[in-house]
């Protein structure tokens, strides 16, 4: 299925498609949650960057090519269709970079963005805390002012820090004003993970590999130059791009269409008897939902191009893609039958990963509250608020 593209958009698509065909490794890279795989994924980022394909929508001087939003979606579709490696830099590119563009100083932009684009520096996010989870406003890790050294001293603990086992820098919110109310008094910090006082403890995931880590902060000094936005303004800074269209909320449909296509292929190749009846219909249903998601995303992109605003539509996307991803993988496991139980298969790994989709980046329960209140205009709960 082809949407109507302009001349230049078609040219862009062809370039990307050809480059990927020539460069995507034929064998999957080792898991990026191993030391070896992390290095291999970093090298892959370097190759993308050399072709100016690592951050297509960024300004040229930061390593991009100023691609339009439509081109960005095209890139994402082609990327997943080609079965190219996962992006080890995605926390930085999708979550942090939009904030640095909006709130960072020119010096910070120069210092952090080009090395992010090349994969030289990989960023880990440090949002959650053991007692906070989805509720960022209840963060407890602290930042204490140190006027003498001109900066802040961090203490506390972060968890579910993805990529942190091998990444170079981290970003997160700390409570810099203990007196302020929940949402206020938070400051947004950037810090090298090898700073004095930081301990990284990997957490083994369902698939047995340390995709996440816990971070312990013990009197970690961060200079003022590494504060993003104004002190005490961290919540607003972090939320300003929470619905960012190039981030997680507008999750590129290419990925799910590619998964759906692979599922159809798996089912076609399944021995007779495995891929029949009920499962066949679920395979088709997965494909249908992936297409619906693709069309919906294109609609959103077109609205944005026309000057519209993302609004709460990101929450609709999030609920849709995360549940679709789980369904696609579950169906694949059913097509595979007992073979799915073999450890280390791609579909089983993908399934375990997909389960975190409805949980991270704002649980789907939070997204449903947002949809209900901001789009449908339903009343808030009488007390407490949302989960």
């Amino acid at each position, binding site marked *: 299925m082809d949407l109507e593209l302009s001349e230049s958009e078609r040219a862009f698509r062809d370039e990307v498609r050809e480059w990927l065909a020539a460069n995507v490794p034929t064998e999957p890279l080792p898991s990026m949650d191993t030391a070896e795989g992390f290095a291999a994924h970093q090298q892959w980022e370097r190759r993308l960057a050399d072709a100016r394909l690592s951050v297509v929508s960024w300004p040229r001087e930061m390593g991009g090519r100023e691609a339009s939003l439509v081109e960005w979606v095209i890139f994402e579709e082609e990327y997943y269709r080609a079965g190219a490696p996962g992006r080890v830099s995605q926390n930085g590119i999708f979550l942090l970079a939009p904030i640095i563009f909006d709130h960072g100083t020119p010096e910070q932009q120069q210092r952090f963005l080009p090395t992010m684009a090349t994969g030289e520096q990989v960023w880990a996010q440090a949002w959650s805390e053991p007692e906070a989870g989805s509720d960022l406003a209840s963060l407890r890790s602290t930042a204490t002012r140190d006027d003498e050294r001109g900066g802040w001293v961090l203490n506390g603990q972060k968890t579910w820090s993805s990529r942190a086992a091998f990444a170079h820098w981290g970003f997160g919110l700390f409570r810099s004003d203990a007196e302020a109310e929940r949402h206020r008094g938070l400051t947004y910090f950037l810090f090298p993970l090898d700073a004095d006082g930081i301990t990284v403890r990997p957490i083994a995931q369902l698939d047995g590999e340390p995709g996440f880590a816990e971070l312990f902060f013990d009197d970690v000094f961060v200079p003022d130059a590494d504060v993003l936005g104004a002190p005490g303004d961290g919540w607003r800074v972090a939320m300003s791009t929470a619905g960012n269209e190039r981030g997680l909320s507008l999750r590129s449909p290419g990925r799910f269409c590619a998964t759906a296509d692979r599922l*159809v292929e798996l089912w076609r190749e399944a021995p007779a008897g495995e891929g029949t009846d009920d499962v066949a219909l679920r395979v088709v249903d997965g494909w249908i939902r992936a297409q619906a998601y693709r069309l*919906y995303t294109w609609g959103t992109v077109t609205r944005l191009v026309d000057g519209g605003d993302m609004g709460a539509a990101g929450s609709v996307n999030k609920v849709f893609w995360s549940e679709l991803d789980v369904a696609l993988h579950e169906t694949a496991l059913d097509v595979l039958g007992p073979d799915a139980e073999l450890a280390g298969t791609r579909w089983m790994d993908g399934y375990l990963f997909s389960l975190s989709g409805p949980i991270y980046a704002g649980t789907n329960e939070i997204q449903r*509250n947002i949809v*209900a209140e901001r789009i449908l205009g339903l*009343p808030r709960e009488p007390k407490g608020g949302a989960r």
Partner: protein
Amino acid sequence: MTGVRSEEQRELAATVRQLLAKRSDSAAVRSAAGSAEGYDTGLWAALCEQIGVAALAIPEEYDGFGASLVETAVVLEELGENLAPNPLLASTLHAAQLLLHGTEADRAELLPRLAAGEVRPFQLGRVLLEPDRTGDGRTGSMDQTLRLRVEREPVEDPTDVRDIATALVTALQVGTMQRGLAMTVGYSKERVQFGRPIGSFQALKHRMADLLVLVEASRSASWGATAAAAAYLQAPTDDNAAQLARLARAAGSYCTDALDTVAGEAIQLHGGIAITWEHDAHLLLKRAHALGQLVGPAHRLRAALAEVPGD
């Protein structure tokens, strides 16, 4: 790009919507469904004369507007939201059938009459749309807003006409589910139980949020399908046929399931009042069921989708 409606299409939708708001409220819908003709002939005349809805997808050489099936779908979505019985679906399918499979003589004779608003029956599988019933006043159908009769023997529809029908039905389905969601959200903001609007209870909020997700995805799927139908009618190539088959069957399957869910939840979230004849929720429910029968159940569409070549 199929993702959005053009400025003109949005204006067309607004015009139809205004006309319906003026002439086709809940009481008018009921009275039309119960009338001898089974639809509001005055409303239909206005739609044809003021807006030309029956002429949209008919080429200018046959006295049509020479727009496309996308414009027809824009109107069908509004009609779906209004719940009024309306002959536009049968009329459009008739035109499509003539354009794709008619003789030139038939086209020259019938298309101008269809463009002008003549209502003719059209059979799809076992379902006869717009059966002649003047004077009878009843069809056998429980749903009185679609005007259909279930025949004993099916006709063999050409595949392309059936796929076009599937695409157009999704437009009605999307409109109907928009109505269902709006009705439910509106009710839940007003209805107070245990001292607060029921729309403030989290369990119900989440259910309505899920409905919105369904409606949004359905609309996207439907717009893709009707764009493919328009492209095929303008250039009936093999590629366009395959594209139509894929998108229409995908959208048909998705929208049928989604509308069933929306209608069922509308009943449940309205509580007791939904089970009354006075309330529009039951019109929605019956229409949802009847629409699902026009082009076959969702699982059959999924099976048919698996047969599209080259995918």
